[in-house]
């Protein structure tokens, strides 16, 4: 049997594993490309056989919340089953946040995305409606939590307040891996997501050794990062074959399937 590592080394399709990318983006930012971002992302997914990507706006422009989410909506309609949407929220107006999250969930969005780089702590009151709805619906909430930056320290508070939210902590293992491990072990409803351009040496092995395997999920952060590059850290990790499949597919499916309609 060909292993996942061998398939990656040979550039063979991974479609049989029904891989789910829990961290993807559409839109424009500092990395330039010419064509529509949805088509670009689908092409990147097709190269290796990634089945599904959960997308949110790339543009770091949450103040255009509705416009950003509309791009996701149109893309998910065009590529049903391949692209799923996170509702991107800008916490300036709690009423608008509640209305936008409710509206987009009715359209089929599957979770919520927040970005600390917008300048608001995750405990900022404007985010509360999104967390409340996420808690009621048992949704995944994807949070940018780069090691060494703000955001991660607020997770224990939020985790205990919203026990039915699945907190997906992006960029685990990029740096200060011990911080993500500490939070994951303290908070049972957290999931560590692996994307980072640095592909920090042995980060995946360290996380697998330190937190329950069912709490690690894969994301590519494509765009702007490279999906095939991000796959490599799991395909090449010195962990059991079954663990790779769990990280690339099973764990994410369980999170997405537990949502309440």
């Amino acid at each position: 049997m060909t292993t996942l590592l061998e398939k990656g080394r040979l550039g063979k399709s991974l479609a049989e594993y029904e891989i789910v990318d829990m961290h993807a983006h559409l839109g424009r930012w500092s990395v330039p490309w010419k064509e529509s971002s949805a088509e670009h992302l689908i092409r990147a997914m097709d190269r290796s056989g990634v089945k599904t990507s959960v997308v949110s706006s790339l543009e770091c422009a949450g103040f255009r919340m509705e416009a950003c989410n509309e791009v996701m909506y149109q893309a998910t309609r065009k590529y049903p089953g391949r692209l799923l949407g996170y509702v991107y929220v800008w916490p300036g107006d709690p009423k608008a946040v509640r209305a936008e999250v409710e509206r987009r969930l009715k359209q089929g969005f599957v979770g919520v995305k927040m970005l600390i780089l917008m300048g608001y702590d995750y405990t900022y009151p404007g985010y509360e409606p999104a967390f409340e709805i996420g808690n009621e619906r048992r949704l995944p909430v994807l949070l940018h939590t780069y090691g060494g930056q703000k955001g991660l320290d607020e997770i224990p508070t939020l985790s205990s307040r919203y026990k039915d939210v699945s907190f997906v902590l992006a960029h685990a293992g990029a740096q200060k891996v011990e911080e993500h491990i500490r939070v994951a072990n303290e908070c049972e409803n957290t999931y560590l997501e692996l994307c980072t351009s640095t592909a920090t040496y042995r980060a995946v092995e360290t996380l697998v050794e330190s937190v329950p395997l069912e709490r690690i999920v894969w994301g590519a952060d494509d765009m702007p990062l490279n999906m095939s590059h991000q796959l490599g850290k799991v395909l090449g990790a010195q962990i059991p074959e079954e663990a790779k499949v769990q990280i690339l597919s099973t764990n994410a499916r369980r999170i997405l399937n537990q949502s309440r309609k």
Partner: protein
Amino acid sequence: MIELFDAQAGFGGARPGQPWIPTVEELLGHMERLSISRALVRTDFEEMDGNVPLSNRMLYETCATHRSLVPCPSVLPAACGDVPSEQEQIDELIRNGGCAATARPNRDSWSIAEWCSGKLFSILEERRVPMLCRQANFEFEAIADLAKRYPALPIVLFQVGYRHQRVLVPLMKAFSNVYLAIGSPYSVHRGVESMTEQVGAERLLFGTGFPSSDMMPAITMLTYAEISDSDRRLIASGNLDRLIGGIRK
């Protein structure tokens, strides 16, 4: 299976406060596991590498016992007399099987200005020795300046971040002697495809980024790239072999 020649790897260095010193055995173990046939190697991590002659000697000795490793020593301007002359450094590099040189002006506290390091660059250019430049050691404008002043000097940029495309593309279009090693953290959405289209596959070199990074991500970025197999072979090993073949010994 496509042959891989890693242009962006190293071992034997250290970082402050980090107990792990990556060994040649670890590098070789991963190369074997991932079917990487050869690697151009530097002393890495470089943060605490303050004794270039000693590091180079250890690098040469290690590479002499492992045929899959090709030394890429550090070079320095010699005006202060604390290191051998520029000519002697390059002669030593060639004599020990070196196939590229590493320039670390920030790390080693020198200037790329003509009055400081012109002799060093001139000899590297004259011998066509590829010069590896970690992006953190150079402003892009400095790379452009060097590429213009020494048009026959192959300059290989490595450890380039994903946010630099708007600078990297025009830089490489403007200067045909600038090359890019695609190892981590160069994780750019369809970056290999984009650079192949815009500057040509012959300007890209496979690299991994070990020991800072896992080696496999750079491999899958190449094996899954939407490019022709001939371009893939160029990037995987052909381009580095061509540059090395151009060295005037």
